[in-house]
């Protein structure tokens, strides 16, 4: 019976995919304007912070991001649109923030970057911003296919005391309302986002943790294979949609 339910949900997600819609369009015009005009978008402050960190050596002996990657406007253009990607060293999928952490640890030295810390959010925002306006284009290698399949399976699995799957809200009831809020389709087009509720920038994983706590489930850990798998599935689901970083969301 459950298997049948999953099959039905999978059908629904295909139907949704034909008329995909960024969460940007589910916001009121004032919030949309805040995202579209950089001079009003507080997420740009994190991008600027990341730009400064890009050229900064984490310790005097280390190289800065710019020392290897040069001008991010060209070297990082399109990169965020392709993440998560398969990391041959780890033999697993890695998200953009994870790649930045790895670069810091293995190539730069210096203090490790904490998940959801200011520095990592700033660098991730800066790198992702270089892809703004480009279509999301996930890689199609075998390693990523496995991660995406795992992500899809989590996406359609009922979780928590409320016994709800991601798909039940974001496929079956997208466009409907939960209390006063429009339920968005849940496309990860603008991460890291400036969420008005947080009053700061945060990652997709923070947002997913919020959803999991909302359905009274134990959230996965930051950087876990489960979160990266969900992100890989969501990016495939949003293939072709425009990167918006830094997006504003309520």
């Amino acid at each position, binding site marked *: 019976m459950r298997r049948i339910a999953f099959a039905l949900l999978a059908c629904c997600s295909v139907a949704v995919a034909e008329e995909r819609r960024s969460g940007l369009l589910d*916001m*009121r*015009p*004032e919030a949309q304007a*805040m995202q579209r005009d950089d001079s009003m978008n507080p997420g740009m402050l994190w991008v600027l912070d990341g730009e400064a960190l890009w050229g900064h050596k984490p310790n005097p002996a280390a190289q800065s991001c710019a020392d290897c990657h040069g001008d991010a406007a060209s070297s990082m253009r399109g990169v965020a649109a392709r993440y998560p990607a398969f990391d041959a060293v780890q033999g697993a999928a890695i998200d953009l923030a994870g790649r930045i952490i790895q670069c810091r640890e293995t190539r730069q030295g210096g203090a490790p970057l904490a998940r959801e810390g200011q520095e990592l959010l700033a660098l991730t925002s800066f790198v992702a911003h270089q892809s703004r306006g480009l279509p999301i284009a996930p890689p199609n290698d075998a390693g990523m296919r496995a991660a995406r399949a795992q992500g899809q399976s989590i996406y359609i699995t009922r979780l928590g005391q409320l016994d709800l799957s991601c798909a039940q809200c974001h496929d079956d009831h997208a466009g409907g309302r*939960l209390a006063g809020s429009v339920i968005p389709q849940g496309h990860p087009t603008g991460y890291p986002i400036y969420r008005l*509720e947080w009053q700061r920038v945060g990652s997709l994983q923070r947002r997913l943790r919020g*959803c999991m706590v909302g359905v009274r489930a134990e959230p996965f850990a930051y950087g876990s294979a489960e979160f990266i798998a969900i992100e890989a599935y969501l990016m495939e689901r949003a293939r072709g949609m425009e990167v918006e970083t830094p997006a504003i969301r309520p």
Partner: protein
Amino acid sequence: MKITRRVLLAAPGALLLPAPTRADRQSLADALREFTGGQPMREGRVRLDVSPLVENGNAVPITVAVETPMTAADHLRRIGVFNERNPQPNVIIAQFSPRSGRAYLATHIRLATSQALVAVAEMSDGSFWAQRVEVVVTLAACIEG
């Protein structure tokens, strides 16, 4: 007092908003009186633009514009914006001069709940003009906590 189930249910909500008690809390009327020095306020000349329906009260864009030629003889001196039901009634007080060119101010504000906003303009002739706008802040479903 008999502790009913209702009281217990209400208690955690009350703890979330440890606002000052009504007695020591400055009211909207007090804040307006402080700004105008008790002078009467007239309707008109001030336009307060804010969405009547807000989906998140943490960053609500507002603009205030005042009809005035902004000359040495006739200009805007100050704009004050006040609210009814945040913990404090003050939002922003901005000073202008003929060098401003236009009587215009935009900012992003916080609204704790659905309530009235009042924008008051003090003109160079000492007159006060005001506009009051009601804003509905919708209940967010997916908040962390």
